[in-house]
């Protein structure tokens, strides 16, 4: 299944909704999309991933990219992750640099 994504920016909060599968085939395009956030005043990036079923290394790298390139002070949230996605995030240690929530609490 392909990736569907949607990005909204409100009050410095970038809300990125992802559905489907974030893998090597679509991570590049998605990263290009995220690059649009560089230089904007952003305090939080919130990945809404309730409907994301699969994430591969390339996808995780995009999230790392978000943290590293959009701004060191930006807080990254991963919200509503399914178990399979959450597992990969935890095992690879990425849970330490994002806040994991069931519902976005801000």
């Amino acid at each position, binding site marked *: 299944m392909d990736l569907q994504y949607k990005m909204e920016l409100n009050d410095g909060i970038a809300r990125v909704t992802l559905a489907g599968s974030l893998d*090597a085939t679509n991570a590049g395009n998605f990263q290009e999309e995220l690059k649009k956030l560089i230089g904007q005043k952003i305090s939080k990036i919130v990945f809404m991933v309730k409907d994301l079923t699969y994430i591969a*290394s*390339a996808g995780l*790298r995009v999230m*790392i990219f978000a943290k590293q390139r959009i701004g060191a002070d930006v807080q990254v949230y991963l919200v509503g992750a399914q178990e399979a996605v959450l597992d*990969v995030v935890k*095992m*690879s*240690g990425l849970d330490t640099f994002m806040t994991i929530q069931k519902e976005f609490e801000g």
Partner: protein
Amino acid sequence: MTNRIDLHPTHSHGEFKLRAGKPLPFGATLVPGGVNFSVFSRYATACSLVLFKKHAAQPFAEIPFPREFRTGNVFSMILFDVDYENIEYGYRMDGPYDPENGHRFDKEKILLDPYAKLVSGRDVWGKEPDWNNIFPHRGQILADDFDWEDDCQLEIPFEDLVIYEMHVRGFTAHASAKVKHPGTFAAIRDKIPYLKDLGINCLELMPVHTFDEFENSKLSPVTGERLLNYWGYSNVGFFAPKAGFAATGKFGMQADELKNTIKTLHKNGIEVILDVVFNHTAEGNERGHYISYRGIDNKTYYMLTPEGYYYNFSGCGNTLNCNNPIVRNMILDCLRYWVTDYHVDGFRFDLAAILGRDQNGAPMSSPPLLETLAFDPILGKCKLIAEAWDAGGLYQVGSFPSWGRWAEWNGKYRDDLRKFLKGEPGLAGAVSQRIQGSPDLYQWEARENCASVNFITCHDGFTLMDMVSYNGKHNEANGENNSDGGNDNHSWNCGWEGPCDDKEVNRLRIRQIKNAAAMLLVSHGTPMILAGDEFGNTQYGNNNAYCQDNELSWLNWEQLSENAEIHNFFRQMIAFRKASPMLRYSSYAMNAAPDVEVSWHGTSAWNADWSGAARTVAFMCRRWQSDERRTVEPDIYVAMNMHWDAHGFELPGLDNGRRWHVFANTGMESPDDIVTPGNEILLDNQQYFMVGPRSVIVLVGK
């Protein structure tokens, strides 16, 4: 300043934009705008970079290195605008095929980069590979973006370590481990609370570098199931972690998973030592196949006979040419990489005596590789532990070239303690040396650091339960007619070969296990415990389970409740060791006054029996009279009676009004066999202690 790019392409090949690369570092390295590929070969006449899309059967590109991209013996190239996360790479080398002169170039083969940081091809453990794959072990490019936060090497003093040797898969593969991802790095993390509770503070991981579990795989004559290269003492890629050990291996995230596991272990005060196998590779002998080194520069990487055959000091077909300067540097680069990029705390070198042989196989007195490692600045705080022997007959326990930095797996400790435990007479003298950290082996060199890693069991040989349950090995399931595995087990089955219903036999076995645990954990030096021994793990008499990826090898965690008393005994002994600084003393410094007064006793105090008939010995540790700590730290007295009859031991007197208390007595049934440190029980009789048959007592004077 952002996105400044200093590099730009100067060459092209078809659609690919290129530039002469940087020869160093070797391997594939991300540089602004592209990837720098660099590979050494002294004798290759031509080289090309072969690129595959992930998992594709055929390469999508092959880019020859132009002459101007070779500097000396190094081919290097920067490839721009490459989707580095989705490619796999290898090299094709041309050169002479002339085995008599050591050359085996074959331009039909695609070769793995010896410096590959990620290797795909065996991504999921045990998944049958496609045998027609033209390039089964493929290099991948690793992004260098793991966030270590404030993590660093723990630098726990060597003498304070309690090492726990484990096989990553075997530790949690059994369903009884009750972890989410059995047999993986991630599952070790789930077991950290258990490890902390046990009290160990160092994991020694059996090989985690890339190996091929399907190497030499065959069917078991006993069960008919496929036997795999389960242990992995056979290297495919020295720099790359084994993907099949990672739950995320199928996503190519094995490096992150291992790093995260190490980081979490460090957070919990547990060091990580890797078992590294630099003595041979998985390419085998003349009849072996091409993976990497053989096709890249056979003559440099391997020790060859004058006729061009492979020397076999490893017992595995070939011998890595460790004291060739190129190979030596590769080993150094590799160890530095594991330290800087994985925060590893130390290494145990498999068959390390090979690392001290020259290019013709002769042992050297000051092997340059071992010296280099001993003095390397980046490895400066690493534990370096040698398995100080090889399969070619070189045995260097006590004489391994150390420069004061190398410690050794003390094989003599294992053998002497085992003989003493089974009741062989005349070992009191040897055992007294072993328990004091083997000064007879290590004092001459005045090593200041701990030199002796004490162990009674390790992955090679019987588990502790099997050591007290079998007189002989039972390796039929390995398919080698029971001819593999050691015969010098010094084991005793306590009266019945294998599992039995006899209550007395089983009680004795448990007692012998406790005896072993007590002796190991009161010995000076660094103790090492084989994972599972603390709850009586059995391999049903198999003393060489290298190919048994099944319940024979996997730890059965149900035994934890069945053998709770063994587990408790180990746990309390470890706690006792931690609470007793005098037991963790291990300096051999010449002319320095020893820190601890160790005195030896027999059934009469101050009068040890060193005769050839002795099966008993006792010792006392206390601080010297002039040492202020003498009044703070309790005195320790240990009596070991390995005779089949009970013996009374006269206890040495105490000063300062101290009295003897019992910490452990293996002659007693659980729960009276051991207490928690600090809760020792005052003895009624302060002069004399009747030690039961084949029993050990540990007393404290306080």
